[in-house]
C-alpha cells in the first residue's frame, strides 16, 4: 500500500502546490509577467469582469451564511474558483453552450442566468432550473462527469447541422476525471473532432480525496494526449490567463487552422478554499493552513491589484462595486424568499402530456390536502 496509510500523508503531499508551470499572465501580486500577453479586453470589460468576480465572492459568503441560518439547503461553495468561472464565461459568445456542475454558479450567471434562478434550487424550488430561451446554459449536473459525453454530443450535433459559429464549454472537477464518462466523452470528442472545450476545475480535492489519489498521472492536462486532444494547464486563479486560454480554445474549436484539432482539455489549477459543500467538514481530512498558500494567489486580489496599477480601478469605484453587488444579492434573495411553490408542480413536465395515471395521482394528492390540510404533510417525516 502507498504512503496513504499514514493518516497525515496527503496533508503534506506535493501535488497541491502549483508545481508544473501552468500558463499565467499575472504573478501573485497582479503584475503582468514578462513575456505574458494581456488579453485584448477593454477597460470596461476588465472592470465588468472584476465586478462579476466580486459578486461571485459575495454571493458565496452570503449563501454559506444563508445555509447556516436554514434559509437555503446544502450549498457548494466556490471561493477560490470564481476567477476561473467568470473568465471562462467571458470567453464564451452568446451562442456558445455552457455545461456546468453544481459549483459553477458564477459561470452560469455570467452566461445569462439570473441570481434568482441560482437561488431557487437552493430553496428546494425546481423552477430555478428553468432556462430562458435565449440563454445557452444547461441546468446543473450533479452526478459527476455525466455532462461530458452530453457536451460532446451537443457540439457534434451543432457541427452536423452546420452551426460553425458556436462551440460547447463543459466544466467538471478533478474527481470527475476518474469516472468512465470522462474518458468516454473525451474519446468521442477526439474521434469526431467536435467543437468542444473541456475545463477541469482542478481544485485539488474531490470531497476528502486528494488529486494524487484520483489519478497517478502527473497532470490532468496530459490526459488529453491519450484522446488526441490538445491539453493546456493554466493557473486557474489568474482570471486573465483563464480568459486568454479559453478564448483561444473556443476560437480553435470553431475555426481550426491547418491540422489543428478542435477539442481542448483545459486543466485549471486552483483550490477550493472552503468546504466541499456546507454539509462537509474539511478539517477532518486536510490542514487548514493548506488553503493559506493558495490564498496568496487569490483571483480577486490579483485582478484588483492589476486594475489599480493600470489606473482602471480606484477605491471609490471598488466601494461602489461592493455596494452594487450587495444590493443585487439582497434583491434576488428578497424575490426568491417570497416565492411559494405548489405541490402540483411535482406532476408537471414529467412528460409533455400528463399521462392519465399521473393525473389520478395528482388528484389524489389534492384531495388529501383538502381533507387534512398542509400541516399533515410535515408531521411524520420531521
Amino acid at each position, binding site marked *: 500500500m502507498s504512503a496513504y*496509510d499514514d*493518516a497525515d500523508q496527503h496533508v503534506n503531499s506535493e501535488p497541491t502546490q502549483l508545481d508544473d508551470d501552468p500558463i499565467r499572465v499575472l504573478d501573485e501580486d497582479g503584475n503582468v509577467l514578462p513575456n505574458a500577453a494581456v488579453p485584448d479586453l477593454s477597460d470596461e470589460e476588465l472592470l465588468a469582469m472584476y465586478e462579476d468576480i466580486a459578486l461571485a465572492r459575495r454571493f458565496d459568503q452570503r449563501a454559506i451564511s444563508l445555509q447556516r441560518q436554514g434559509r437555503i439547503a446544502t450549498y457548494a461553495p466556490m471561493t477560490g474558483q470564481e476567477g476561473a468561472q467568470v473568465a471562462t464565461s467571458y470567453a464564451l459568445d452568446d451562442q456558445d453552450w455552457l455545461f456546468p456542475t453544481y459549483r459553477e454558479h458564477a459561470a452560469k450567471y455570467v452566461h445569462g442566468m439570473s441570481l434568482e434562478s441560482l437561488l431557487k434550487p437552493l430553496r428546494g424550488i425546481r423552477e430555478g432550473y428553468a432556462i430562458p430561451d435565449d440563454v445557452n446554459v444547461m441546468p446543473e449536473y450533479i452526478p459527476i462527469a455525466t455532462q461530458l459525453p452530453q457536451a460532446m454530443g451537443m457540439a457534434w450535433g451543432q457541427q452536423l447541422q452546420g452551426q460553425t459559429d458556436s462551440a460547447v464549454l463543459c466544466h467538471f472537477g478533478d474527481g470527475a476525471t*476518474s469516472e468512465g464518462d470522462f474518458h468516454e466523452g473525451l474519446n468521442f470528442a477526439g474521434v469526431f473532432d467536435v467543437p468542444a472545450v473541456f475545463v477541469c476545475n482542478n481544485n485539488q480535492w474531490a470531497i476528502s480525496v486528494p488529486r494524487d489519489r484520483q489519478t497517478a498521472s502527473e497532470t490532468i492536462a496530459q490526459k488529453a494526449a491519450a484522446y488526441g486532444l490538445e491539453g493546456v494547464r493554466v493557473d486557474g486563479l489568474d482570471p486573465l490567463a483563464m480568459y486568454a486560454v479559453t478564448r483561444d480554445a473556443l476560437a480553435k474549436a470553431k475555426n481550426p487552422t491547418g491540422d489543428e484539432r478542435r477539442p481542448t482539455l483545459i486543466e485549471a489549477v486552483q483550490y477550493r478554499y472552503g468546504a466541499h459543500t456546507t454539509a462537509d467538514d474539511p478539517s477532518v481530512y486536510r490542514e487548514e493552513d493548506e488553503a493559506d498558500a493558495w490564498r496568496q494567489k487569490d483571483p480577486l486580489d490579483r485582478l484588483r491589484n492589476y486594475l489599480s496599477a493600470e489606473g482602471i480601478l480606484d477605491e471609490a469605484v471598488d466601494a461602489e462595486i461592493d455596494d452594487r453587488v450587495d444590493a443585487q444579492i439582497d434583491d434576488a434573495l428578497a424575490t426568491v424568499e417570497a416565492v411559494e411553490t405548489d405541490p402540483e*408542480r411535482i406532476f408537471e413536465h414529467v412528460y409533455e402530456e400528463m399521462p392519465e395515471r399521473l393525473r389520478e395521482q395528482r388528484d389524489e394528492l389534492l384531495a*388529501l390536502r383538502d381533507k387534512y390540510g398542509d400541516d399533515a404533510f410535515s408531521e411524520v417525516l420531521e
Partner: protein
Amino acid sequence: MSSATRATAESGTDSLTIVEAVRDGLYTEMSADESVMVLGEDVGKNGGVFRATEALYEEFGGDRVVDTPLAESGIVGTAIGLALSGMRPVAEMQFMGFSYPAFDQLVSHAARMRSRSHGQYSVPMVVRAPYGGGIRAPEHHSESKEAFFVHEPGLKVVSPSTPSDAKGLLIASIRDPDPVVFLEPKLLYRAFREDVPTGRYEVPLSDAAIRRTGTDVTVYTWGAMTRPSLIAADNVAEEHGIDVEVVDLRTLSPLDVETIVDSFTKTGRAAIVHEAPKTGGVGAEVATTIQEHALCYQEAPIERITGFDAPMPLHALEDYYLPQAVHIQEGILEAVAF
C-alpha cells in the same frame, strides 16, 4: 473508540442509531475476519459522508478501509474482482442515486457470476447505499429505486428499518455467499436509538419482521416508511378501532413469501407502502405474490400508497411526494371499508 466500535467480547447491548449500528456491524466483521474490507468514495479519512465508516480507517488502516478514485463502476467492478480473489469487500455507493454508473457491473456480472460459471465462481460482496428522501438533499440524493436491483436475479436486496436489524442484516449480508445490495434508509440514520446486541449476530436475509400484530388488515412496508406506517396503524386503531398488522419486509429480494402470505390469510386485506414511484415498484410484486398464493382469502382490493410516477421533487415539495401517515391511514381505511 466510540461505543459503536468498541471491541465486544462481552455480551450486552449498546444504545445505537442506525448509522452507528452499520458502523458497529462493519467493525465487528472486520475484527473477526481479515478478508472483510471497505472501499468507496470518502469512506477512509472522512469516515463516509454520513460517517458510517467513521474511525474504521484509523482502526484498520488504509489497506482495509480504502478511499478510491471517484468511479462507481470501478469500485463495484474492483469489488467483484476482490471477491473472486477471496476477499469480502463491502463497497459504499455514496448515495443510491449515484450507483447507476455501477449498474452494469452489478447486473451484468456480480449477479450472474455464479450462474454463468455454473457454480464455480461466486462474488460474496456487499454494496451499501444510503437511499430515500426526507433529508432536504439536492437533486439525485433522495432516490428510492430498490426495484432496479430487485428485478435482477442473483442479487439480494436488503433494507433495514431499525438499528439492531441494520447490524444483524449487515453481518448476514457480509457472510452471505451471494452479492447483496444493502440499502440504508438515510432518513432514519439518526432518527432514533435502540439497544443493539454487542458482538456478532445475524438477522437472516430470509425473514420479514412483524412489527405490530393485528387481525383486520396488513400493511406491508420497509425502510423509512415503516415509521409512518406504524403511526398510521396506531391512529386508525385509536380513531376507528381497526386492528392493523405491520410487516416490515427487511429483505426485498428474495421476498419472505411465507410471512407475507400468512399475514394476509389472517387479515384478508392489504395496504402496501413504499416511497418509490408506484409503477413497477416492489409493491406490485408484493401484491401479485399475495394474489398468487391467497386469492381466496382476499376481501378487498390491495391498496398501494407510494411515491408518484414523477421524479422526486427538490426539497420544498418532498414532503408531498413521500407517503405520510394520513396518506397511509386513508389507504388502510379504504382496504377495510371495501
